[in-house]
């Protein structure tokens, strides 16, 4: 009996040596601490550097509150448009067979490979005051660049593929049989969509919209180019963070940053909850 205790613990041939395993785990977590968790923590410590009172007071200044209002407005316009587009694109792509489908998907994915600054540049060239279209728009009193429409267009550009990309794989996997059955039973197009398709894709739709929201509220590069950074008018939260930071108003900048960081944490929490709860109804690439 006493012999057994001296036998080395069994290690499966498909496991790494404990020493390798632990050093890899600790190494990876240490790097995450330096690269991810430390920056996240510093946002909150800098915001609270002069106490919670100073932080809260900076949020009530007109600069911060108008930035928050603008960012919420942009998100409120971008989200429904993006969700509507995503559902329409996914419906057209997954329910019909047509030539050029792969090309269409490539075009929808295009914004992911274009730099946000280049996206902003494109919008300035199309709608800026010195272009034909832009000149006419400015003359008629509806400027796009250095105004709200430009910020919305820039946010739409950078978030463009989010919902469609999430829905397309889910809807391909679900097939068309149930919709076809509903049609045979006499349901109209809208009814099929509302009662058959929508319940199947609602969590994927929410997931895509969640990611879209995080990006829309946090976009900096594309918005910086088209917004003109007019205080109280076209400065979104990230733009205001930049302006405050460059004016060495550290507490104000980091407090506004902390609000966005909290939003990011809420987004991550909701996203993870959706992945755990509705894994089977999200795109096949998401695991857990």
């Amino acid at each position: 009996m006493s012999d057994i205790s001296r036998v080395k613990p069994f290690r499966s041939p498909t496991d790494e040596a404990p020493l390798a395993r632990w050093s890899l785990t600790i190494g990876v977590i240490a790097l995450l601490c330096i690269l991810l968790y430390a920056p996240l923590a510093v946002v909150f410590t800098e915001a609270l550097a002069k106490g919670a009172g100073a932080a809260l007071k900076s949020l009530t200044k007109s600069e911060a509150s108008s930035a928050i209002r603008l960012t919420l407005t942009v998100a409120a316009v971008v989200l429904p448009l993006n969700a509507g587009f995503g559902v329409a694109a996914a419906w057209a792509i997954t329910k019909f067979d047509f030539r050029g489908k792969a090309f269409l998907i490539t075009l929808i994915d295009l914004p992911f490979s274009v730099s946000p600054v280049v996206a902003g540049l494109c919008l300035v060239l199309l709608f800026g005051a010195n272009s034909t279209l832009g000149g006419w728009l400015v003359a008629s009193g509806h400027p796009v660049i250095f105004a709200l429409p430009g910020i919305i267009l820039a946010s739409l550009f950078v978030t463009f593929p989010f919902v469609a990309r999430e829905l397309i794989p889910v809807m391909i996997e679900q097939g068309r049989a149930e919709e076809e059955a509903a049609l045979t039973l006499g349901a109209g197009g809208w009814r099929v969509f509302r009662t058959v398709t929508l319940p199947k894709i609602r969590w994927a739709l929410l997931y895509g919209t969640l990611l879209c929201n995080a990006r829309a509220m946090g976009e900096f590069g594309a918005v910086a180019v088209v917004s003109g950074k007019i205080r109280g008018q076209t400065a979104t939260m990230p733009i205001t963070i930049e302006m405050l930071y460059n004016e060495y108003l550290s507490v104000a900048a980091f407090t506004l940053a902390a609000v966005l960081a909290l939003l990011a944490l809420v987004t991550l929490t909701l996203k993870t909850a959706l992945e755990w709860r509705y894994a089977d109804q999200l795109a096949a690439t998401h695991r857990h």
Partner: protein
Amino acid sequence: MTRPLLQRSPMPGFGLSMGITLTMLSLVVILPIGALLFKGAEFGVANIWQVVNSQRVWTALFLSFRLSLLAALINLVFGVALAWVLVRYDFPGKKLIDASVDLPFALPTAVAGIALTTLYAPNGVFGHLAQTLGTKIAYTQWGILIALIFVGLPFVTRTVQPVIEEIEQEVEEASATLGAHRLMTLRRVILPMLAPAALTGFALALARSVGEYGSVIFIAGNLPLKTEIAPLLIVIRLEEFDYNAAAAIGIAMLVIAFTMLLVINIVQIFSRRRIGLV
């Protein structure tokens, strides 16, 4: 007989859904990019080349590309290691760490930018540490590299993780039975299986880094010829109302991005073929 443009289908709503799709696509993506290309055509290839061929632009483009490549390579190694640890090992807080990997996707780039700068500036925690060691991180190319590693961090992990989950352990057992050492199994059996997914993640991280602006400009210091990235140069030209030069640099960046995607797609097709997928 050629395939019809649209196969007949009992499904309703083709006109409506396709109409919405094409309208949005045109208004938001195609028309703006078309405006850039049109501006470029108007300006002329020779003029574009003249703008891009200046030392300042060339240095900025090369800097963006070189540091993005380096950051994506570091993320490739780190991402595979992280995915392996998250799938194969058990330790307290694993689910929390797994969820936090997507933080760079969720955290706005400007927030990441000022946070990283605060940490790595000479009076920050890590920056001070670096200074006692006699180096500087923020306001040098090292700072840009750190920011680019940050923004590209989740890509490789998220593409590789599902592949590791699907590896059947029998393959590893077979390799062990045939006498392979664990390291040899990892190198000869596991890594080739992960390669296509890892490459996808690498490509996504690279594409993201080359165009990255928000997280980089705070930490970069933005010295011409030293720490000035290509997107910043576009912003500077726009602020000078030099739309032609801005468009020329923008077109150069588009060309670089698409060439990279093309090369990576070709490499990917080969690597998939080599291990017998597809």
